C-alpha cells in the first residue's frame, strides 16, 4: 500500500503534467531503404501530484522508456507539453534547460552501464554537483558522505571503484547520485530489473523512505506488477505508444478494463503462484 505522505506543504496543482506527448523514431524499411517514421509515443497525457508515485507499465516496446526519457529531457519530444510545477520543459533549451535539470533526475535500469566503471563511488555521486558548480571539492565530499548515509551505504567506501560494489549497492549509488541535486521528480526507469527479489524489496523500501523524507515525486517505469502494486499510487498502462488505461493503482489492478492490462495482471499472477509453490530463497 502506498504511504500517505501527509505533507505539510500546501502545494497546488500536480508536480508533473504531460499533455499529448509525441516522439517519433526513424527507421529504414524496404528494398530502397526509405526512412519511415515509427511512433514510439503518441498522445501521451498524464499527471502526478506532489509526493505521489505514478507507475507506467506495459510490455517491451510499448513506449514507456521513451516517455521517461522525454520527461527527463534526455531526448526532446517532437510535440506535446511537459510541465514541471509551472515551468515548460518540453521545448526548453540552453540556459533554461540547464536551470531545469536539477529538478528532474533519472535512475537507469542497469547500474553497471549507468555508471562509468572507471570511476569511484564519490566521483560518480559528485558528478552532478561538479557539473552544476555546487561547492568546492571538500564541500562535495561532505555532501557525498551525507548522500551515502541516506541510501544506507558506508561513507568510508566512497573512494572504492564502482565495480567493487554489488548490484544492489550500485543501484544505491545511482540513487544517491540522482538525489545529489535535491530533485523534485525522480524517474525510475526499470530501476529494479536485473536485481534479485530480496534486493528489489530493499531498494523499494529505501525509495519509499526517501519519498517520505524529501517529499519526492516518482515516475516509475516497470513491467513487474507486483512491485508496482507495492509502490504506486497511480498507474498508466501503455501499449504501442499510447496510454490505454490509467487511474488509481488499486482500482486499475482490481478491475482492469483494457485487454493489455488484463494480460499484464495475469502474467504477474502466474509468477506469483509459481513463486508461492517454490521454497523461498
Amino acid at each position: 500500500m502506498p504511504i500517505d505522505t501527509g505533507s505539510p506543504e500546501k502545494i497546488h496543482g500536480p508536480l508533473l503534467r504531460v499533455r499529448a506527448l509525441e516522439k517519433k523514431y526513424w527507421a529504414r524499411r524496404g528494398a530502397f531503404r526509405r526512412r519511415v517514421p515509427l511512433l514510439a509515443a503518441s498522445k501521451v497525457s498524464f499527471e502526478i501530484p506532489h509526493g505521489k508515485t505514478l507507475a507506467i507499465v506495459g510490455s517491451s516496446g510499448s513506449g514507456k522508456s521513451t516517455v521517461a526519457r522525454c520527461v527527463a529531457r534526455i531526448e526532446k519530444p517532437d510535440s506535446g507539453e511537459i510541465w514541471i510545477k509551472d515551468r515548460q520543459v518540453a521545448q526548453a533549451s540552453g540556459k533554461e534547460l540547464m536551470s531545469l535539470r536539477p529538478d528532474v533526475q533519472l535512475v537507469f535500469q542497469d547500474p553497471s552501464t549507468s555508471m562509468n566503471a572507471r570511476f569511484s563511488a564519490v566521483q560518480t555521486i559528485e558528478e552532478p554537483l561538479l557539473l552544476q558548480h555546487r561547492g568546492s571539492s571538500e564541500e562535495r565530499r561532505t555532501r557525498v558522505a551525507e548522500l551515502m548515509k541516506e541510501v544506507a551505504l558506508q561513507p568510508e567506501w566512497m573512494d572504492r571503484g564502482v565495480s567493487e560494489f554489488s548490484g544492489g549497492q550500485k543501484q544505491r549509488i545511482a540513487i544517491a547520485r540522482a538525489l545529489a541535486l535535491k530533485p523534485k521528480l525522480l524517474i525510475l526507469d526499470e530501476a529494479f530489473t536485473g536485481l534479485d527479489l530480496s534486493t528489489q524489496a530493499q531498494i523499494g523500501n529505501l525509495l519509499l523512505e526517501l519519498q517520505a523524507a524529501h517529499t519526492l515525486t516518482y515516475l516509475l517505469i516497470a513491467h513487474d506488477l507486483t512491485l508496482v502494486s507495492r509502490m504506486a499510487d497511480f498507474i498508466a498502462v501503455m501499449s504501442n505508444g499510447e496510454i490505454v488505461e490509467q487511474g488509481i493503482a488499486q482500482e486499475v489492478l482490481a478491475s482492469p478494463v483494457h485487454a493489455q492490462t488484463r494480460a499484464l495482471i495475469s502474467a504477474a499472477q502466474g509468477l506469483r503462484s509459481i513463486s508461492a509453490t517454490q521454497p523461498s530463497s
Partner: protein
Amino acid sequence: MRPKAWIVVLSALLAALHLAILAAGFIAPYDAASQNRDLSYAPPTHVHLRDASGWHLPFVYRWIPDPDGYREDTSTRYPIHFFTRGEAHKILWIFPSNLHLFGVDEPGRILIAGADSFGRDEFSRLLYGGQISLAVGLLATFITLAAATVVGTVAGYFGKWADEFLMALGELFLCLPWFYFLVGARAFLPLHVSAAGTFLLLIIVIGIIGWARPARLIRGIVLSARNRNYVLAARGFGGSNFYLLRRHILPETFAILLTQAALLIPQYVAAEATLSFFGLGVSEPVPSWGNMLSALQQYNVLVSYFWLLAPAAALVITSVMYWLLADVLHHWIQSHSIN
C-alpha cells in the same frame, strides 16, 4: 609468462633501446661522419684478453691493410678505456661534452661492427642512424594517431554528415596502394631538400597516409561510448560536449591508441628505412638505417662485407619487440574488456 609480465618486460627492453639510441653521442665511440680512408671496409675489431705476454684487461689491435684485406698489427696493444674522452658531441643536442662510454687511444680504433666504404665506424653510425629512423617512426606515428583521433572523434561523436564524409574519405585512403603512394608522394616533393627538410617531409608524408584504419577503430569506440547510459546521465546533469569527451569518452580510446602505436611505429620505421634505401629518404651524409643498408646494393659488398648488415639486425630487433608488444597488448585488452 602472464600477459602483464610480458608487457612490462617488452616495454622495459624497448625503453632501454630508445634510451641507448638517444644517448648515441655518449655510447658511440666516434662521430657518424669521421672518415678514415685507411680503414675502408675494415671488419669488426676483435677484442682480446691475452697475448704472448699473458692475460690483460680487454684490448684491441690496429687493422693494417694487407693484400687479402686486413690483418692485425700485434705490435701495439690498445686497451679499452671506459668513460673516456673522445670526439666532441652534444648531450640531447644541447650540452656539449666529449665523454664517451668506451674508447681506445689514438691511433687505435675500436670498430665493434666494422667500417663502411669510407672507413666510418659502423657501430657509431648505427646508433646515430637509429636516432633518425626511430624519430621518423615515432613522430609519424604521432601524426597519424593524432589525425585519427580527431577524425574518429568527430565522426563518431557528431555523426551524420561529418561521419559519412570522413568515413568515405577514409575508405578512399584505404584503397590507395600504400607503398606506391608513398613513393609517388615522395616524388612530387622536391628531390633536393636540406637534410632537415627531408626529415620533416618524410615524417609528414608517412604520417598522413595511414590515418584511415585507426580512425575507423576510434570512431567505433566513440560511437558506442557516446550512447552509454552514464554519458547520457552526465549530459542530463549539464555536462558539455567537451566535458563528456574529456572525462568519459576519450579515456576509452587510450587502450586502442596504445596498441595501434605499437603496430604503427615499426611499420613507419621500416617505411623510412625502405625509402632511404631507395634514395628517396634521408640522404648522405646523415646516417639512417635505410641509407646505411643501401650500400648493400652493390654485389661485392653484399657478398664480402657481412657486418654492413648491422642495420638490418637493428631493424629486426626493433620490429620484433614492437610487434610482440602490440600482440600482447591486444590480448590483454581483449581479456580485460570481457570482464
